[in-house]
């Protein structure tokens, strides 16, 4: 179905992906559990949305270990920051 708000970046115009990007804009980096806690999403859904953002190069994902447990850390990229700024500016246009 075509969107009513066609000018908005479809990758960011989704509740969970927008929430993830908004969190990452405010911090230097965030681990998976933090994003899970703050967005209140399910693990599977969050993983899928993170993968989509990563594929679009809006975020970078680093997988390491902490105390023998896997640790996934996400960070917004310059491309992601630019996309977020454009998204917010387009939103403002709709609210005028």
């Amino acid at each position, binding site marked *: *179905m075509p*969107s*009513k*708000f066609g000018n*908005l970046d*479809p990758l960011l*115009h*989704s*509740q*969970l*992906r*927008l*929430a993830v990007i*908004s*969190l990452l*804009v*405010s*911090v*230097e*980096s*965030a*681990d998976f*559990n*933090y994003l899970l*806690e*703050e*967005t*209140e*999403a399910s693990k599977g*859904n969050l993983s*899928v*949305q993170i993968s989509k953002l990563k594929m679009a190069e809006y975020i970078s994902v680093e997988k390491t270990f902490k105390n023998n447990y896997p640790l996934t850390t996400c960070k917004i990229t310059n491309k992601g920051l630019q996309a977020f700024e454009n*998204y*917010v500016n387009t*939103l403002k246009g*709709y*609210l005028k």
Partner: protein
Amino acid sequence: MNSTAENSMSPEQSFQIINDMIGRARKNYNSTISFYLLLWGMILVISPWLDHGLKLMGVEYHFLVWILLAAAGVIIGVIHGIQLGKNKQAPSILDKVVLAIWISCSVSFFLMFILQFAGYLKGPEFFLISGIGCFASGWILKFKPLQIGGLSFWIITPIFYLFPEYWKELMTLGILIGYVYPGIALRKHVKNAK
């Protein structure tokens, strides 16, 4: 939260999500600062009165209470800071900015503490540095009680010189407005944000 509502969100809903998430990220550093404000608030409210009480009781080295409580504050602060650093899930740039401000203030406090013991400073100068720490942090975090706390430190400083005999009362008042009240308000703010 789900992602199935793609393209059906209104611009207002989108803004709501952005605001909510930025607010949630902010609660992290608010809780860190509130701990330190309350820790040092308590130490600095207790110190002058304990010193005064010990002096009245005839304890010779009553003034050492300042050094002991300050050392306890530094140790507790460092341990808490190390634990926070280890468990930090999402370090922010604002964290670093606020940390840099308070590290600068702490170095100034330490040097002033030595100068005061050597007799070069009278004491109220501490409030000028506290004013910078509170006002700048409050400005960055957009938190009014902290800004008001900073202003109160600056307002009280000249009063110290006008009424030096009331230094304990003025110090307690300044610390309560500048550290304790914003610390409690921030803690409340964090709880409400959850």
